[in-house]
């Protein structure tokens, strides 16, 4: 849809010029790395066993920040009402914002994976295709719910509190599935072993997307 695309275009342009979100999120990922290492102690082995969980912990934390800010640019510039009054199907806005969020998370995740590989001297190259698939499916699920809830909490004063409270329980299945599948991939096992998890992720993603598309107009009504 043309309108979904223009939303992405606008967000990417805004982000490129202000460089607010991306820089902060990337830096945040770097900090997370240090925090994880300090929390787990100096042994490398501990980090390696916990790696799938740590990766996704990092993604969820970054996601909480990123998705919570989905409509920040609208709020700051007082454009929310403009979107409400825009005629036609509101789900185009949802899809546009979702695409923007997925793009943002993709960059953050790439950076985080790279940093992990660098700092802990891990080799991901053989696992890369599978890893990308799992990351894609998991991120899509997180973003689908995150964008929707981000819109719901956008106008609330207590949004920083309520957004994680709403998102985290809803994200439990995606988290469980993604961590398990990531573990399979990183251990070098064939992707077919994680088939059940991947199917669960795909189904969950579909359900969340459909709900998002169908209900967004009710969220964006003022």
């Amino acid at each position, binding site marked *: 849809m*043309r*309108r979904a695309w*223009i939303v992405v*275009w*606008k967000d990417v*342009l*805004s982000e490129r*010029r*202000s460089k607010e979100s991306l820089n902060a999120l990337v830096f945040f990922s770097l900090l997370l790395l240090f925090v994880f290492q300090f929390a787990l102690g100096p042994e490398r082995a501990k980090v390696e066993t916990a790696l799938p969980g740590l990766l996704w912990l990092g993604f969820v934390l970054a996601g909480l920040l990123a998705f919570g800010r989905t409509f920040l*640019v609208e709020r*700051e*510039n*007082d*454009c*929310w*009402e*403009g*979107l*409400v*009054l*825009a*005629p*036609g199907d509101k789900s185009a806005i949802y899809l546009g914002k979702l695409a923007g969020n997925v793009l943002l998370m993709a960059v953050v995740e790439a950076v985080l994976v790279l940093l992990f590989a660098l700092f802990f001297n891990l080799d991901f190259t053989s696992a890369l295709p599978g890893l990308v698939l799992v990351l894609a499916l998991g991120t899509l699920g997180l973003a689908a719910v995150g964008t929707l809830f981000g819109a719901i909490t956008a106008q609330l004063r207590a949004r920083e509190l309520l957004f994680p409270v709403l998102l985290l329980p809803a994200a439990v299945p995606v988290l469980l599935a993604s961590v398990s599948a990531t573990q399979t991939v990183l251990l070098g096992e064939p992707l077919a072993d994680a088939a059940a998890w991947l199917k669960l992720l795909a189904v969950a993603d579909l359900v969340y997307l459909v709900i998002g598309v169908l209900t967004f*107009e009710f969220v964006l*009504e*003022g």
Partner: protein
Amino acid sequence: MIATGPDAVREQTPPLPASDLVVEATHLRKRFGLTCALEEVSLSLEAGCGLTLLGPNGTGKSTLLRILATLLRPTSGSLRITGLDALKEPAAVRGAIDMVGHGTWIYEDLTAIENLRFWSVMGGHDAARARLRAALESVELDTVAECRARIFSAGMKRRLALARVLLGRARLLLLDEPFTGLDRAGRKWLGEFLMSFKARGGAFVVATHSFDAGLGVADRIAILAGGRLALDRPTTELGHDDLRRLYDDLALGPGVAS
């Protein structure tokens, strides 16, 4: 000058049919918790007509405007816009409404022309560059077309918002305190813009607490006091001084020296 705006813009926004009731609001009430912001407000507006809604701050002007814009649902009452039920089918009605409120819907990190492009596509209008440029020329912002909106003054931002209105097909334009921050030339300019909007068959509602500026642009005056519509008359019926006195009485309370 707006009245003789560039042909490019006028060709693509054909004149709208006149003699229609653009707004038909009946018995609107709006309650926020225990406070009643609006009580029994009814008004109607024909195409080609401009209404100024006067009232001191806090009397519910913005609330009424937002209800007319379908941004807020009234607690009770009915609202028809361009003949359609705005409460049952807000989506169908929104294409005909545009608003220049406290927020001007401008993304500060985007340039003027990029802002116009975004809102044109969102509104489902043609976003051809030439058309966008023509609109910017009409509001005398073509020199800053490629500048980020962050550096614009309040008046410039409002002009950009009006350029957006030009590119749309709105039949109802709602303006909330549009005169604030505008100097004399700016107010004159806005008045001309509104006249031209009316001439094309649109209707507008200006909500303001500025008596003189509001009077200059309207065909009808309404005074909102304490959430109720205390007055709703064509400007031709009452003299300026009478109106002023009425306004002071109704809005500020009896006994206040005018």
